[in-house]
């Protein structure tokens, strides 16, 4: 019998504990009260019933029935009076303890004769019966009565009268047995009290304890800021779940399945969850696979939630239920987004510091592209081209958020989802505005129109003026300085190429730049330069192989790009050479055929390659495969009166040459001041 004590106190002494065991706790429960009332009534009837029995015995035994009647009646006065004298049921029970012993005394007297000794067994039987009062005190009263009885006996018998020794040892043996039985009966009575009578109280104690524990649990569930709920195998939610779930997703009705409940809030999610749950319970997929497929994130009305699942298996290892933990990660997501934005701004800032003019140019062009990309304003093909270019540029300049939005917009356009495209465009312009205002601040008033001189160049100019060189020479020099050296451009491209190669897992490639002091008009060639990035990207993405493949084919493990500009036969040439796998002419032919383009001659194939919508890639990646890039370059090149030359050798590499007439390049107008 374990005690429900709250804290281990020092054990009270043995006597104290005995006292606590013997004396019942003060409060009488309703159950005890009604029980004792019934017992007392039964006891009274029982003792009254002794009267006829005693009369019978004394008559059979010839021990003066009349005397017996008087004696029994005298004893019966006691409980009768006792029931009036005491109001408490327990007190009344004590009276019966006394009465029982007196009855036993009478029985022993009237049972004289051969069975007088056996009559004593009455005491032991009735002492055991007294345990039914569930009160050790009753038994003690009886025992004390017996003791008193024997004490009075010894007082009344004067020993000096007799010769023989009175058989005191017999009495002591009696006493011993009575004491023994008293102990036993007290123990039984107390146990009876604690466990039967007191059962109700024990149950109530336990119920209170359980209720309290439930309340504690309830407190946790009501206040925890995560949605905790167990979902049983049949999909039903437990009614015990975090309150915050209902705050997020609405009221719960008993018997709701989790799929149904979430479906009330967001039908698509509920549907999806239900499907995943089915695959969990139908047992076709292994448990971990099915669990993995349950939705891990979801967004409802602008709030983001994370879902995690913990399977709970029974002893046999079968899935019993799943604990779903829902966390509101809106703030985390927002924070992540904010951090990403920060990083972007930082990277933009870095770029501006490193290459102000380059970034400025990108920025202005990006602005133009953004404006031009409105789906409603322009032809869809053009929009596609613009967005693609913008995407590439933005990626190269580290403005990933814009690149991502462009990618999403391109996807929608590819799926002919006009509304989706328009929606993404809105998102794009939104983001662009944000960025633009920040960048504007950083760039200040800087525009492309300004010309930047290095310290040496300035000194050189000054020297010429001081030396009073002819005006034409100085003018020419000034014009020269206003043209942009391709050097800068190509270096920038080189850097971007290296970064891109890393991203595409082509390793650390070699990029060689040879600008040969070629200068080109910045503004006129800007569209060409921006679309040139596509060629660069293609070369790295399609042209160069992975280091492993290169080694397999006996090439040095790092790819090599050569970017050069030079003058040749009155033309300015910009050249890109790679030592990759070369153009896959068969693939080009097949694709051209599938698009219905002529594909017989080499020129046909070249023309096809540079046409809109052409790509031998099956799936567009972030960087290429949209079939827009090369087309964009061709358009830009032709707008400047240039042409493209392509040389490719399978397994050895590809070279693209962009030739521009020199007078366009040099802009003779500027010289005729």
């Amino acid at each position, binding site marked *: 019998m374990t005690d429900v004590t709250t804290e281990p106190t020092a054990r009270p002494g043995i006597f104290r504990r005995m006292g606590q065991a013997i004396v019942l706790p003060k409060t009488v429960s309703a159950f005890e009260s009604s029980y004792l009332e019934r017992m007392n009534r039964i006891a009274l009837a029982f003792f009254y019933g002794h009267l006829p029995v005693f009369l019978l015995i004394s008559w059979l035994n010839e021990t003066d029935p009349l005397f017996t009647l008087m004696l029994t009646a005298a004893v019966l006065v006691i409980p009768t009076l006792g029931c009036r004298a005491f109001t408490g049921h327990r007190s009344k029970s004590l009276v019966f303890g006394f009465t029982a012993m007196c009855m036993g005394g009478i029985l022993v007297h009237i049972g004289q004769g051969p069975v007088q000794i056996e009559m004593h067994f009455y005491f032991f039987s009735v002492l055991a019966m007294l345990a039914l009062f569930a009160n050790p005190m009753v038994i003690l009263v009886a025992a004390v009565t017996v003791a008193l009885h024997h004490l009075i006996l010894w007082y009344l018998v004067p020993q000096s009268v007799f010769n023989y020794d009175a058989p005191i040892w017999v009495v002591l043996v009696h006493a011993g047995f009575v004491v023994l039985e008293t102990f036993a009966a007290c123990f039984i009575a107390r146990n009876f009290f604690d466990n039967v009578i007191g059962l109700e109280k024990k149950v109530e104690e336990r119920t209170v304890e359980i209720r309290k524990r439930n309340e504690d649990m309830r407190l946790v569930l009501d206040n925890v800021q995560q949605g905790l709920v167990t979902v049983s195998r049949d999909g039903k939610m437990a009614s015990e779940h975090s309150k915050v779930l209902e705050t997020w997703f609405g009221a719960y009705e008993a018997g709701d399945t989790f799929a149904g409940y979430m479906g009330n809030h967001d039908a*698509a999610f509920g*549907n*999806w969850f239900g*499907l995943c749950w089915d*695959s969990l319970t*139908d047992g*076709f*997929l*292994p448990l*971990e*696979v099915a669990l*993995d*497929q349950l*939705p891990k994130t979801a967004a409802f009305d602008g709030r983001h939630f994370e879902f995690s699942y913990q399977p709970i298996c029974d002893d046999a290892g079968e899935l019993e239920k799943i604990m779903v933990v829902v966390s509101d990660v809106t703030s985390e997501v927002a924070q992540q987004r904010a951090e990403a934005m920060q990083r972007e701004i930082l990277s933009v800032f870095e770029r501006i510091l490193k290459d102000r003019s380059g970034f400025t140019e990108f920025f202005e062009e990006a602005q133009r592209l953004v404006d031009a990309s409105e789906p409603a304003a322009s032809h869809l093909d053009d929009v596609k081209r613009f967005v693609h270019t913008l995407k590439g540029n933005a990626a190269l300049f580290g403005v990933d958020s814009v690149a991502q939005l462009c990618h999403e917009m391109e996807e929608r356009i590819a799926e002919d989802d006009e509304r989706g495209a328009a929606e993404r465009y809105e998102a794009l312009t939104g983001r662009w505005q944000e960025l633009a205002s920040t960048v504007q601040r950083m760039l200040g008033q800087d525009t492309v129109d300004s010309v930047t001189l290095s310290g040496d160049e300035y000194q050189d100019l000054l020297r010429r003026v001081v030396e009073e060189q002819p005006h034409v020479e100085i003018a020419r020099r000034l014009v020269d300085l206003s043209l942009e050296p391709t050097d800068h451009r190509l270096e920038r491209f080189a850097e971007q190429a290296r970064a891109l190669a890393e991203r595409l897992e082509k390793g650390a490639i070699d990029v060689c730049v040879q600008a040969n002091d070629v200068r080109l008009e910045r503004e006129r060639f800007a569209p060409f330069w921006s679309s040139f990035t596509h060629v660069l990207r293609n070369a790295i993405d399609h042209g160069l192989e992975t280091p492993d493949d290169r080694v397999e084919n006996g090439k040095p493990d790092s790819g090599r790009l050569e970017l050069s500009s030079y003058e040749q036969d009155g033309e300015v040439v910009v050249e890109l050479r790679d030592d990759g796998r070369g153009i896959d002419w068969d693939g080009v032919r097949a694709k051209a055929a599938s698009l219905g383009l002529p594909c017989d001659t080499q020129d046909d194939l070249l023309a096809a390659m540079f046409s809109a919508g052409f790509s031998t890639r*099956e*799936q567009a990646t972030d960087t290429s495969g949209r079939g827009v890039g090369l087309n964009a370059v061709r358009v830009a090149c032709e707008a400047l009166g240039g042409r493209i030359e392509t040389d490719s050798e399978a397994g050895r590499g590809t070279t693209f040459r962009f030739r521009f007439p020199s007078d366009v390049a040099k802009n003779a107008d500027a010289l005729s001041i």
Partner: protein
Amino acid sequence: MSKIIVVDDSATMRQQVKQALTPAGFDIVEAVDGRDGFNKVQADAAIDIMILDVNMPRMNGIELVEALNKEGRVQKGLKVVMLTTEGHAELIQRAKAAGAKGWMVKPFKPEMLLAAVQKMAV
């Protein structure tokens, strides 16, 4: 050992499936679209697991399963697993109605695919 056919118009996807399952010793057959897949399954009774994409030219995933269902292959024990992108509940439901028992979300983790196939192969 079970023989598995993977039906997907994307070579990359087929490659990924192959890479995930071949080390475990499974025999992989490839098909580039629905019709190709249908022919190959019909030709080879040893194939007992089919992993297929939904969006394919010529004959898409749903149609393929329905066709095979008509031919009785599904009943004879061909286990069908659809690969699909997350969120397309109606596709999955149609696939299940056609007889596909399992489905997995793309992109899948190789070890998950392997575990699923191992369970089916048993």
